[in-house]
């Protein structure tokens, strides 16, 4: 059967590589849950049956930053902890996004004190801030959807791996 007949029978869609890449990235955001305070409890509910982040392709909580592309910082970040948060962020592969969940993470919240960083944007690039103490899981879901919109609006990162060498193509064949 020729190509024309195949296309006629199965149908086809015209798209771009960028659109495919964006769709793939936003539909499979793997969060790295950095639950350091009470916000973590609400973050757990995000993956639970009621709010169910699986509907948005984001149910795979990875407990290793090297397998995740969305960092959810859920809780009060002290000056001592800030180095750990930054280290975890640095270990995540590009492209990556950050959600500052709750007022403590966003601004220091009620901890206006010498030991708490007054907002993690002092040492991290933050994409979405979520208010609330703690925010409801629905609010976190809204944050996740905002990240998806942001991915949709931005130019995707496509890494050119080059053509496979002869030995590599033999291995995959």
């Amino acid at each position, binding site marked *: 059967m020729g190509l024309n007949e195949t296309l006629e029978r199965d149908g086809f869609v015209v798209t771009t590589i960028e659109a495919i890449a964006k769709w793939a990235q936003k539909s499979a955001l793997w969060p790295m849950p950095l639950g350091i305070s009470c916000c973590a409890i609400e973050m757990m509910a995000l993956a639970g049956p009621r709010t169910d982040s699986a509907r948005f392709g984001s149910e795979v909580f990875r407990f290793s930053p090297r397998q995740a592309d969305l960092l959810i910082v859920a809780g009060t970040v002290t*000056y*001592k902890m*800030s180095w750990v948060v930054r280290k975890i962020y640095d270990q995540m592969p590009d492209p990556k996004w950050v959600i500052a969940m709750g007022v403590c993470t966003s601004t220091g919240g009620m901890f206006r004190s010498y030991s708490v*960083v007054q907002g993690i944007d002092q*040492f991290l690039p933050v994409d979405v801030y979520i208010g609330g103490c703690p925010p409801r899981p629905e609010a976190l879901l809204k944050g996740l959807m905002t990240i998806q919109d942001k991915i949709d609006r931005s130019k995707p990162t496509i890494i050119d791996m080059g053509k496979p060498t002869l030995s590599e193509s033999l291995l995959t064949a």
Partner: protein
Amino acid sequence: MAVTKEAICEVLAPICGTVQTVEHHGDITFLIDKGDLIEAGHELKSHPRTLFNLLIDITAIDQYRRKNRFEMVYILFSLDHSTRIRLKVPLDEYDEPRCPSFTAVYENANWYERETYDMYGIIFDGHPDLRRFYMPEDFVDPETGDPLYPLRKDFPVMGIQGSLPIPEKNPM
């Protein structure tokens, strides 16, 4: 049976003489001199009439601008008599308070005293490992180089700029 205030005063009498006490909502506080603390602790822990065998907590109070600025607070509990008491020890030095370490009586005083040292800067003589507990070892004023103790009343609530470093936002 709970141990009465009078019984504790009698046990302490050979060591401290007449002990000053304060009673508030059923909590009894004994004011003890710094020099008598260790001996009084041993006696309260081992005397069969008191048997205060559990050290619940150690902390301090900064009575700013008072002559005896710092005051040590010890909370003891007797499992045998189910009685809870509080000991208070006023420290007479104003800026560099010192106190004998309670680790000689209770092993678990170790970390409580490290915390108290970290927050108030009280030096415990005879403590096996007096290091900071929560704050970084080099928590000092960046201008003067003096160590900082955050629960002292003259410490600013928002801390001192530059005393606690954070990572750079754009390291490259």
